[in-house]
C-alpha cells in the first residue's frame, strides 16, 4: 500500500464483511508522545482467540476466492517498520478492535494519503452501515458522523455523486483546519 488512506480503505472492509452496523475509525496524532495511532472499532461478529492469533498470518483468510489474506499483515508490517505495533482485541458476537501505532517521527511512517476520499467512497458504498471518524491533532478534533449526514440527506441517497463530492470537501477542509499531517 502506498499510503495510510489505502490501508484504511482496506481494513474498513473487514468490518463490513463482519456484518458490523457501526464502524468507528479514530486517528490520534500525538507528536509529544511520538505516536500516530489509528484505531478501528466495529460491532461485527467478532473473532475467537484462535482466529485473532491467525489474522496477521498472510496465509490465513476467511474468504473462499483465494488462499491469502494480506490486509492486516501488510498494515502490521508497516507499523512495525516504524517501531510501532498492532494490537487486536475481539469477542465473538461483540465486535473487534484493531489498534495500530506508528512512531510519529519515523521516516518510514507512511504518508497519510487521501483519507477524505477513502471515507467518502466507503460510506457511500454501504448506506446501511454507520461510520464515525474522529481525528485528533494537537490543533483540535474533527468528527465525521454519517448518522448526522444521513439525517440531513433525508431520502436523497448517500451514493449521489454530488453528496460524495461534498463529503470529500467536508473532510478535506476540516482536516486542514486541525492541521492533520
Amino acid at each position, binding site marked *: 500500500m502506498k499510503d495510510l488512506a489505502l490501508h484504511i480503505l482496506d481494513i474498513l472492509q473487514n468490518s463490513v464483511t463482519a456484518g458490523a452496523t457501526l464502524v468507528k475509525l479514530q486517528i490520534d496524532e500525538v507528536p509529544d508522545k511520538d505516536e500516530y495511532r489509528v484505531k478501528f472499532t466495529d460491532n461485527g461478529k467478532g473473532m475467537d482467540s484462535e482466529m485473532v492469533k491467525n489474522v496477521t498470518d498472510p496465509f490465513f483468510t476467511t474468504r473462499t476466492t*483465494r488462499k491469502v489474506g494480506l490486509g492486516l499483515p501488510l498494515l502490521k508490517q508497516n507499523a512495525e517498520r516504524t517501531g510501532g505495533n498492532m494490537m487486536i482485541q475481539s469477542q465473538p458476537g461483540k465486535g473487534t478492535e484493531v489498534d495500530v501505532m506508528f512512531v510519529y517521527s519515523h521516516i518510514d511512517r507512511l504518508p497519510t494519503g487521501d483519507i477524505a476520499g477513502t471515507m467518502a467512497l466507503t460510506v457511500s458504498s454501504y448506506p446501511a452501515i454507520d461510520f464515525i471518524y474522529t481525528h485528533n491533532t494537537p490543533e483540535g478534533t474533527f468528527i465525521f458522523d454519517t448518522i448526522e449526514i444521513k439525517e440531513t440527506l433525508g431520502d436523497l441517497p448517500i451514493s449521489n455523486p454530488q453528496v460524495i463530492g461534498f463529503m470529500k470537501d467536508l473532510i478535506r477542509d476540516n482536516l486542514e483546519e486541525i492541521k492533520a499531517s
Partner: protein
Amino acid sequence: MGTSDSRLLTSDNIILLTTLLIEQNLLLIIKNQNQMTKITSLADLRKIKSDVEAKMSLRERSETPESMVQIRVAMATCGIASGAKIVMDYMINELDKRNIPAVVTQTGCMGYCYAEPTIEVTRPGHQPLVFGYVDAKKADQIIEKYIKNGELLDGIIPVNYENIEGK
C-alpha cells in the same frame, strides 16, 4: 526628444503602476478572505440536497437501482494495491459529468487478483460483465463503448457466474 519613450517614468506611468499594484493587493485580500470563510459544513449539504432535488425529474426520483447502470469495483487488498480507488473515483466523477445515471459501489475480491483492478458492470436488463486491468483510460473506454453503446471491448474476464456476492 524622448517624449514618446514609454520607458520614461512620466507621472502618467507612475499612476498606472500604482493602480496596478493596488489592484493586485486588493485581489490578494479578497482571495485570502475567501479562503478564510470557505470551510465546508453541513449547511452546504442542505444546499446540495435542495439543488439536486430541484434538478431531479419525477421519473428520476422513482428510479430504482435496477434501472441504472451498476458498477462494482473490487476493493479488497489486491484491488486497492493496484489502484482500484483511482478507478472508483474516476467512474463516479465521469458518469456524473456525462449524465449517465449509475450506482458505483465497492465489493470484495472476485478471485482475479492477477487482473486487478477489476470492475463488474451491469447495464440495465443485461448480464453483469467483469473487466480486468482497468485504469482511467480503460474506464473511459468502458463508459464510451460498453456502457453507452453496448459494444464489447478487450479485457473482459470470461467466466460464468451470477454475481460477485454469490461467490
